[in-house]
């Protein structure tokens, strides 16, 4: 269970500066696939970074299974990021000096988890369809392939939570669809809690729940299986897609 309590983040400390995230309180149950939507600057990526412990909140706290990560020291938070959370970035953020295989292995090189036999990397490579390109430098891979490497890297330590910041944002529709299918399969097969930031309503509709943000605040929330039951939401979402 991920919980945020009155979570706020202000980047510019000058008086009167608007917060990037403003008193957001959310509860994300284990195993749920949540999409966070919103326009650029709505604070959705900052919220994700706060949940991952990559940024310090200005106020409020993030709890994972009841433990406040804000209370953890740098080392404990690094361990949490490494062992319990997988992170997929929009721009892949792969290490250019490593091969696809070594990029996937990188989180384990940080030493928090006992290294597993090499086949687990190979099975992950097979799962993302890159077993033949495992020794290639990541710069030699296509955008879709790079994102699949990033997803495999996020999964190498067997996390319970997968955070994805616009994972399909830099991909064409075919690759975006493949990545999305992969995330859904992971949720079903591994029971992962997935929190995905997206500005694309079609992508968001594949999640269990949509959290819409505006100006750093949660504007509205809905479960996607209720959308058809609510003509109002369908109309609003359609308007959003067109807008």
């Amino acid at each position, binding site marked *: 269970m991920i919980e945020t309590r009155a979570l706020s983040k202000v980047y510019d400390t000058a008086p009167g500066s608007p917060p990037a995230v403003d008193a957001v309180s959310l509860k994300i149950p284990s195993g749920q696939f949540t999409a966070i939507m919103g326009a650029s600057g709505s604070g959705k990526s900052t919220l994700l970074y706060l949940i991952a412990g990559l940024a310090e909140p200005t106020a409020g706290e993030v709890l994972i299974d009841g433990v406040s990560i804000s209370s953890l020291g740098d*080392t404990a938070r690094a361990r949490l990021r490494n062992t319990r959370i997988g992170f997929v970035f929009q721009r892949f*953020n*792969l290490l250019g*000096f490593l091969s696809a295989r*070594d990029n996937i292995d990188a989180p384990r090189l*940080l030493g*928090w988890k006992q290294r597993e036999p090499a086949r687990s990397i190979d099975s992950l490579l097979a799962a993302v369809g890159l077993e033949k390109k495992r020794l290639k430098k990541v710069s030699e891979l296509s955008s879709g392939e790079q994102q699949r490497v990033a997803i495999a890297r996020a999964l190498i330590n067997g996390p319970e939570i997968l955070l994805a910041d616009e994972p399909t944002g830099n991909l064409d529709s075919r690759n975006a669809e493949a990545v999305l299918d992969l995330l859904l399969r992971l949720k079903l097969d591994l029971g992962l809690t997935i929190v995905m930031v997206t500005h694309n309503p079609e992508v968001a509709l594949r999640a269990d729940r949509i959290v819409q943000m505006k100006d750093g605040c949660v504007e509205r929330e809905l479960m996607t299986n209720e959308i058809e039951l609510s003509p109002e939401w369908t109309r609003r979402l359609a308007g959003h897609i067109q807008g």
Partner: protein
Amino acid sequence: MFKLTLRQLLHHPVRMLLSMVMISVALLLGLVIKGLSNGVMQEKIHRTEGIGADLMIQPPHSSYILGLGENVMPVALAQKITEVNGVEAATPTATNVSFTNRLEAIFGIDLPSFKRVTGGFEYLQGGPFSGPYTALVDNVYTRTHHVHLGSTLNILDHHFTVSGVVEHGKGARVFVPLKTLQSLLAPGKCAVIFVKVAPGSSDSAVVERLHKFEGGALKNYQITQMSELSSLITTSSFLGLQQFLLVIVVFAGVINFLVIFLALYVQVLGQTRELGILRALGASRRYMLRLFLGEACLLCLFGGGLSLVLYFVTKAIVLSIYPALHFLLPTSAVLWVAVIALASAVLGGAYPAYRASASEPIAALAYE
């Protein structure tokens, strides 16, 4: 971590090689100077020991480096010393340093007594002095100075003809008759008396007797047992050499510090995003610190290894040009290289490593 450090280094091979070469050149400077000074010193000791004497008597406060002493002892003293119980033979030797072409010690010897003390020369060509202005040279001297039997040497503005070539290892490389050198420097005087102790007598007992000789006439003289010579001749025997070596060591350390600092600082600035990625993947500040310090240590380790390789290459080149020189690198110098390399790695890598560890993941990931 080692794998990641190594990959990070290998990702910028030119930067890595340049850093390694710069580190190795700084260390090489110290190694060559230490190896050369030590080699020359050891060769001097070896050559002095090779004389075959058991004791060496010099005026007070004389240098153990033969050739640097003054010719102030009366030659007659050598004859008197032979009367001391336990002394088998003694030979007076005048010394001079020639500055022609290169620094070279010249011995003025009395061949019969020199033979009694040292066992005499092994002649490779020619034979003993054939006149007052004749000289003996050793086979190393013939090779390095391109002289041969019959060649003329200019010593103290006088011409000496080479009458014999001898096997090296008898103290000096050039020998002239004692009386001739005395006439040019200090008549009736010598700089050192070599003493052969009789079989069955102990060196220290003879030294004691020599100090008491003729009511303590020699008590202020410097009497050295040749077996102790190697421990007495150190870098401090050469005026300023120790200080010079220290300066070189400090310079090598400072250069290494700057090289490491620059290489890693540039890397921290250039790889801000990668640092953010590592932090996002779960690298703690401590890990980042270790990663960069590890990289600094690896660079210095490789640089130190390369400096040793370059030392042997330099040695081979120098010896091919100056065969009379000697190199001897003590193990302690190699250990010093490792200490300097590691110390400069830690000091030079500390700030860049701190910068890397202090990077906030979110800020680093946003870095373009």
